[in-house]
């Protein structure tokens, strides 16, 4: 395994791009700096002698700029493209950002072919020179970039979809005052995501893990001036942190068990540990703790509530971070450490249950949303649940398959929604859309492809990946059959809400204010990425055609070296027998899936083709249920009431009662005691010199007498 230094270039390119774009942003902003000398308005004497005229001028200019700035916050949402043209530096930043993405994509492709060039069956791994990050006696963290089939696949997705979204953003963000900043963040995100998938060490992975969280924070809060995006960003970060805390404890357990955080070392030594029968509980706890981290990052029950709020960010961000890449980090982690999770049946089942439950909650909530991005957000939660369902049933390759197809079609749907929102002057409420297929034909057609894939219409990419998951779950038997039924129900709901969304957005009468809103097709920078993604959404299923089709499952074969350890553990537990479904059953499942998808897609489309009456009727007839579903089963409110409020109360009590009253009370009480004693003794010191003299003299006499006496 030769040193492949160039692997470092894959994450380094976006990082460099981010730094350059950030620098360009800093150069581009109109700053009103305080006078360099002395303190500011508090004491004018500094500026008074010397540059008072200049100071006054600066102040006046400050006023003018302040007015401009005062408008800006309310402005950037409905920005007028013509009135705020991007500066040259901002355009350059966008160019740099897209350029480094193209470079990273090229390197990812190079890496893919370099891996393919290695003989099949051997360990297909490329590793770079390590970076000795942390080293203390007894504990060392070396990080190198490792390209193996799994990370290569994800690299391609990240760089590919990432590149498309960068291009799309050049159109979508046009005219925004933070144009260059946006690209700096976006590039930084790609850097962190690549660190996450390429890192050889769990702690290196954690750099990326928290790094993507940070970028998510920054990008959700990109339009911070509106207030709620900043709150959503904060919520996302904190909920991720809850998961990360669990992740950290898991990593401590792994260090304790294996003495290292190197991922491949851990994977290689789990098998022996499981066979020896030692540390079974510790392994299980470590796996569950890491899964806790995944719940935060991948928005699984009970930590999923940040993701819908995260839609406050710009739409390309939702597409890239909150659909295609970051939220799938949890799936990546589980597959990366698959033997750890596969070592315990309980862990797998917990993952499966959480996945299925999340899928159901997400899908059912998406049913009644009015905001197009919220529909897609809950849909993402639900689809991520599917992926965890796959992991829970031991179908690691299927999870990655769905991850990839989902990246295509959900990225496409988000970008399409973004195109709609862009064309509708930042209207997101589907009740105020309708009939847009005529005005936005390209967006409409590509959106259809994405919707078809999401709802699992036969032969589109989502159909195959979802079907594979359901088939695996079915095949696992036992309690997994219940999970399979939940998955099937979710598939039905998914088809329904997807086509409800399509119908509400593109069909029926236009329900918007036609005098002021003139929907129009988006520029090419936005529609071309849509088309590319549409093609991928349609044909992406070719990566993993079912066995019954008689062709090899390309992705399975490719990922074989990575997923073999975990699969072998599961097989060993079942006495070496894999759950094989007969061809007949497989065909039946495929047929069932197609039928359900088609039927419910039809129902959803027809119910809403005409308009929004059905929503209104439902809200009137079943307000309780409508509200329950609309608020994601009331989980978010429960958190606010049961967790956030009590913590605020505890903090207040800690400060006022314990700190101020008890501890400081004791301190001040001591002081008061001293003061009282002193007050009593002050009679002795009347301020007369003679009195003090008497004290001194008397004391001296006493000392001498004592000396004589002894």
């Amino acid at each position, binding site marked *: 395994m030769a040193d492949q230094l160039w692997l470092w270039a894959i994450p380094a390119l976006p990082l460099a791009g981010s730094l350059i774009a950030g620098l360009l942003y*800093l150069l581009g902003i109109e700053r009103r700096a305080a006078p360099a000398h002395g*303190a500011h308005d508090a004491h004018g004497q500094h500026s008074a002698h010397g540059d008072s005229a200049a100071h006054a001028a600066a102040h006046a200019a400050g006023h003018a700029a302040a007015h401009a700035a005062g408008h800006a916050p*309310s402005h950037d949402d409905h920005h007028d493209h013509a009135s705020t043209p991007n500066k040259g530096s901002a355009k350059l930043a966008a160019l740099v950002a897209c350029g480094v993405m193209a470079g990273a994509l090229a390197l990812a492709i190079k890496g893919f072919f370099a891996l393919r060039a290695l003989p099949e069956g051997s360990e297909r791994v490329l590793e770079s020179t390590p970076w000795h990050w942390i080293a203390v006696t007894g504990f060392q963290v070396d990080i190198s970039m490792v390209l193996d089939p799994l990370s290569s696949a994800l690299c391609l997705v990240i760089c590919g979809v990432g590149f498309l979204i960068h291009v799309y953003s050049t159109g979508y963000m046009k005219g925004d005052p933070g144009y260059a900043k946006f690209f700096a963040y976006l590039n930084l995100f790609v850097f962190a995501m690549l660190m996450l998938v390429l890192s050889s060490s769990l702690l290196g992975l954690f750099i990326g893990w928290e790094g993507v969280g940070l970028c998510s924070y920054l990008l959700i809060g990109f339009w911070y001036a509106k207030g709620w995006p900043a*709150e959503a960003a904060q919520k996302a970060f904190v909920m991720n942190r809850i998961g990360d805390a669990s992740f950290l404890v898991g990593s401590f357990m792994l260090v304790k068990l294996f003495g290292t955080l190197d991922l491949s070392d851990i994977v290689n030594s789990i098998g022996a540990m499981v066979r020896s029968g030692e540390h079974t509980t510790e392994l299980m706890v470590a796996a569950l703790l890491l899964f806790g981290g995944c719940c935060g990052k991948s928005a699984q029950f009970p930590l999923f509530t940040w993701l819908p709020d995260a839609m406050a960010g710009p739409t390309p961000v939702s597409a890239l971070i909150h659909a295609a890449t970051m939220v799938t980090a949890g799936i990546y982690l589980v597959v990366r450490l698959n033997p750890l999770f596969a070592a315990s049946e309980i862990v797998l089942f917990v993952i499966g249950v959480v996945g299925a439950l999340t899928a159901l909650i997400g899908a059912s909530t998406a049913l009644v949303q009015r905001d197009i991005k919220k529909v897609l957000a809950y849909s993402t939660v639900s689809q991520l649940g599917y992926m965890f369902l796959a992991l829970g049933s031991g179908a690691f390759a299927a999870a990655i398959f769905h991850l990839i197809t989902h990246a295509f079609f959900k990225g496409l749907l988000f970008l399409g929604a973004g195109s709609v929102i862009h064309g509708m002057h930042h209207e997101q409420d589907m009740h105020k859309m309708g009939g847009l297929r005529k005005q936005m034909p390209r967006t409409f057609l590509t959106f259809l492809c994405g919707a078809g894939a999401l709802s699992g219409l036969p032969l589109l990419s989502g159909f195959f990946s979802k079907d594979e998951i359901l088939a695996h779950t079915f095949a696992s038997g036992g309690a997994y059959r219940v999970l399979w039924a939940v998955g099937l129900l979710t598939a039905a709901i998914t088809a329904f809400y997807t086509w409800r969304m399509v119908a509400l957005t593109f069909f029926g009468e236009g329900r918007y204010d036609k005098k002021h809103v003139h929907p129009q097709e988006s520029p090419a920078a936005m529609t071309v990425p849509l088309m590319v993604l549409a093609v991928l959404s349609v044909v992406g299923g070719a990566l993993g055609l079912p066995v019954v089709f008689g062709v090899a499952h390309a992705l399975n074969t490719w990922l074989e070296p990575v997923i073999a350890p975990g699969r072998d553990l599961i097989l060993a537990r079942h006495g070496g027998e894999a759950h094989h479904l007969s061809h007949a059953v497989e065909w039946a499942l495929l047929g069932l899936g197609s039928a359900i998808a088609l039927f419910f897609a039809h129902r959803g489309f027809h119910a809403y083709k005409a308009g929004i009456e059905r929503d209104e009727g439902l809200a009137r007839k079943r307000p309780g249920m409508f509200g329950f579903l609309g608020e994601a089963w009331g989980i978010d409110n429960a958190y606010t009431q049961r967790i956030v409020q009590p913590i605020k109360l505890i903090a207040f009590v800690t400060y006022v009662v314990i700190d101020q009253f008890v501890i400081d009370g004791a301190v001040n009480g001591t002081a008061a005691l001293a003061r009282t004693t002193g007050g009593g003794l002050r009679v002795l010191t009347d301020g007369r010199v003679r009195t003090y003299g008497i004290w001194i003299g008397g004391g001296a006499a006493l000392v001498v007498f004592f000396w004589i006496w002894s």
Partner: protein
Amino acid sequence: MDHLTWLTFLPLIGAALVLLTPSSAAQAQRMIALATTLAVAVLGVMIYRDFDSSILGAQQVVSIPWFEIRGGPAIRYTLGIDGISLLMVALTSLLMPIVILSTWGHIDKRVKEFMVWMLVMETGMLGVFLSLDLVLFYFFWEISLIPLYFMVGIWGGERRIYATIKFFLYTLAGSLVMLVAVIAMLYQFNSADIPTLTELAAALPADKQGWLFAGFALAFAIKVPVMPFHTWLADAHTEAPTSGSVVLAGVLLKMGTYGLLRFCIAMFPAAAVQWAPLFMVLGAAGIVYGAFLAMAQNDLKRLVACSSVSHLGYVILGMFALTSAGLQGGVLQMVSHGMSTGMLFLLVGMIYERRHTRALDEFGGIAHSMPLFAIFLVIAVLSSAALPGLNGFVGEYLILKGAFDANQTLAIVGVLGVIFGSVYLLVATRRVLFGPLNKRENRELLDLNAREIATLAPIVLFIVWIGVAPTPFLNKSQGAVDVIVRRCDEARALKLATVTADPADAAANLTTPTRR
């Protein structure tokens, strides 16, 4: 003269120069102080460069007879540097020019006195970290206490007198207890040389170490401050001028943790092993408690002060885990905390100079009028919240990892602090920077000027540097920490041996913590 003596007393020379200037020449006084601290920084960097990590004990030692106590030991002027003090000295000497530069903005009365106190304080702090003689150490320890008293008392905020007296009495109480312990040490062992004392004291049985340990520990615990003794900190920070807060958080508090490490743990390993659970509990409690306090604050500066309590809880938790990772993490966290909290105080000061308020609800949307300020604040907050890749993470991870090996429950409590830490920091950030810019005063805020950028940029450099490549820093202190860990392991083995009376067990215990 040798480097260490120059380093320690150069600030005093600067102070004398400042004293020679006329009172009205404020700018000259500032420049002299800045030049002095810069010279000290250069000297500090030279000493850092010359440091040989392969030597375990003190190096570059200078020792001159000072005076003798009849019937007691000879007191010598002994300075020396080892890996732990090296990092502290580097932190001090690099932070001081920044602090001086920051005073341009908020010290405009009695500049001369302020600069003199600052420089005297630098001598005191450097002396504390460099002394290898117990009496000299105590001398510098008290020297460094006085300047802050005046800084808060003269240049402080509204309740400065209350804060000053509280601060002074608290630390003085601790110092006096320590004095008793110092005197006891001098007569018990008839030596004032710290390395000698370390050897002698470590050989005492656990019960005899206990009282001496307690005497030192109380003084240092107040200085750190460990949880129940923390109330002076918030008041002192709130009332102190910005530069005072930066020095207090950046360096002075580290004297407490440094003392705990150098005296309590290294000198009395048996007592440390015995009392470690208590201190770990206090550390973990401090983490969560400080975080809750910070959540309840509306005053931005007080919030940062409370976060200090939380962060120093990590240091205590890690150090008293008595493992290599925990101790190394603790040492690095001392440096990191100096950087990140120092930077937060600087930023709070900058915005206070502009708005003359620190109440969180007075702000909002400032990122729009002060974009550069926003960037720096976010960096400082992320560093404080221990984002991987920035300095705070390395220390915190090592601390928690070390603590996890020693006590899983407390480590998990410490991890909870990671969550709470992000809550109060992000909430404060949001309330200051984000949201609508709906106050007129905030709209007219001016962004950072070149001088302010110059004060912040070096800190950012180190925040990233330590975060990305901590190993060179860790290597410096590794030798000194290894010695301490070995002592503690021996003490633990001895304790086990006496409890179980089975030497085989003890030997097994001795080998486990050093396993890779």
